[in-house]
């Protein structure tokens, strides 16, 4: 075949079709006008999410870049109830589509006022999330995540006492960092499949109870030596390293637990997998 014929044939054959993907930018915010409490529900199905404390004069702000083919932005505020719903919701026109890394990704940055008492309810799908709750007035936290990589951290102490933090994950990689700063009396983490890291660093101002459950996967505990820790272990086909603990049956306590100024009790359930312990100075 002559070269020009081949070239002409190649020129006639187009590249494989790729569906267009339209990304749009949306921002929403609300100035602070004397509100003292905000019940916030954040729904984000796919993409990248950042959440942190924001401007003291703003109740909340969300900057969003979203896939207009599949989602619509979500911004609802109910002044009577003092509640807000933020994030994205499906537009109902497209089915489930698995995104590859080469495609454009949704991106959201949410900031919340450090001046108001927050009850935070977060529902995440296939999301890579960096949630820094440090510096906020967090009274209650509930987080549910699907197939995600989620980092929840308290980089600074919570400025109010937190009743409970409940975190549930499916097939996910979850890290809870600086729980000592959370000031939560009860922390519950339930993991399905994947890996989880629970870091008890930070400043503990009171005793606390943690319920940790991991069905299949590895759970890493980062424990500070300055706090008395007792682990009540419930394991099946799982291992727990006892180094650094005094063992009494299924209970593992740090030396001097009874005399410790701050005590953290961990109810730990691990079904298939392992538990690793890292000691922090």
């Amino acid at each position, binding site marked *: 075949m002559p070269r020009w014929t081949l070239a002409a044939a190649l020129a006639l054959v*187009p590249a494989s079709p790729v569906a267009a993907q339209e990304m749009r930018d949306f921002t929403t915010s609300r100035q602070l006008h004397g509100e003292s409490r905000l019940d916030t529900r954040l729904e984000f199905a796919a993409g990248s999410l950042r959440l942190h404390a924001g401007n003291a004069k703003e109740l909340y702000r969300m900057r969003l870049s979203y896939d207009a083919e599949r989602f619509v932005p979500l911004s609802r505020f109910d002044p009577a109830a003092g509640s807000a719903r933020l994030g994205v919701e499906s537009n109902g026109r497209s089915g489930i589509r698995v995104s590859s890394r080469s495609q454009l990704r949704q991106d959201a940055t949410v900031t919340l006022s450090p001046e108001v008492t927050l009850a935070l309810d977060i529902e995440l799908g296939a999301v890579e999330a960096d949630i820094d709750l440090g510096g906020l007035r967090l009274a209650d936290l509930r987080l549910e995540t699907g197939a995600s990589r989620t980092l929840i951290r308290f980089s600074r102490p919570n400025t109010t006492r937190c009743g409970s933090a409940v975190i549930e994950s499916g097939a996910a990689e979850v890290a809870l960092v600086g729980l000592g700063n959370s000031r939560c009396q009860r922390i519950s983490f339930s993991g399905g499949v994947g890996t989880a890291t629970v870091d008890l660093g930070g400043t503990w101002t009171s005793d606390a109870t943690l319920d940790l459950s991991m069905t299949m996967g590895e759970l890493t505990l980062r424990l500070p030596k300055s706090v008395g820790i007792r682990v009540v272990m419930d394991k099946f086909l799982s291992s727990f390293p006892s180094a650094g603990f005094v063992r009494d049956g299924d209970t593992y306590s740090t030396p001097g637990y009874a005399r410790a100024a701050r005590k953290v009790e961990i109810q730990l359930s691990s079904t298939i997998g392992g538990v690793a312990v890292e000691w922090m100075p």
Partner: protein
Amino acid sequence: MPTRKLARALSSLVLSSLVFLTPSTSVAAPSGGGGISAAAEAARGLWEKIQQLRGEGDTTRARNSARPQLIEAAGPDGPILDLSNLSDPIAIEEQLARLAALPDDDVRATIAGGGSARLGAFSIGSEQRISGNILIMKGNAEVFGHLAGNLVTYDGDIIVHPGAVISGDVLAVHGLVREQGGEIGGEIQTLSASARTARAAPPPLSSTQLTLRRLAGVVGVFLALAALGYGLAAFGRNNLQVVSDTVSHSFGRAFVTGLVGQILILPTFGMLVVGLVLSVAGILLLPFAVVVYALLVIVGVVGGYLAVAHAMGEAYTRKRLAQGVLLGSPSSYGFLFSGLAATMALWAAWATFGWVPLAGDLIRGAAILVTWLLGTAGLGAAMLSRAGVRENFAGRIIPPEALTDEYLWATPQYGVPAAKRPGASTRTGPGV
């Protein structure tokens, strides 16, 4: 050329900076702090100009800026815009986009609840108090005074100056909300116009392009299968021939087996996974087992299909030889090539005539059906022959050790087989 363009851009920048430094007469200026405000405005203007020159500014707003005028109320059948609830900015954008598509002089809209709508730049002076919802299209809305209601702009920014008070929500569709110190009681929302498109959808293909593309696909599949077949013939010829013979001699049995195999693929996989999960040690093998199972299925289907092609090519070659046609030295490579060409013939026909209405669909349906039949038979033959190890269904009824000419010369003695006759091991031939 670029130098001239840059010079023009710089001169534009200087002129615009002069314009921004000149106090505006169309906007009511706030009382006090004029010097600082003017400097801030000048800086902002410069920044926006730089953004426009860099191509990052919102050029849509500049292009669509309209002569300031009131939008008259529409007739009874005209559009009625409800700006009292801005919680669905997408829906509002759709309504406003229809209005924006009209010539400026033809735009008519009624704002529900007694609000007002305007085209072009608009401002609320520091001494002004306005009640009701306001829509501004193709221009910026600058607020110095008080607005008791919602404010929406389309193709324009909302600028809230210090001292301004807006009791309701604000929404800038295809614009920005610039909070410069005023108070906004409600929600502050912006929706961009810029649609970042990853890759444009290609135009529809012509029939020639479609045919060429499909033909390229068929040739590609043919070459890929031929390469796999040649590898199989080179390194696993005996297995290939046994599977091929199984197809030839037990086609019906192979097809039924393949059908049953297809039905059982998923249940077997499920049983494998459950079995491994339930066993303590097996769960560690689960990832490997899943991969191996998938590979086995793929090898079974592809290898079986190649064996069918081999059988077809062999049958065709033997027929030609029987007719006395000289075909060179027949081999598994030749059988595979001719067989694959035959199996691809229907797909080539579809690639060539697939654009023909109805006929194209019929050819494609036939190609799919035939491919499935051959693949099923091939999978079944591979299963029956245990991937070419077992010859029970390959038509090789006489064992290989029986295929000897010993019976021509070895005369049985008293019913004792020749092989067991004393001194038989030393005999190597009739002459010995």
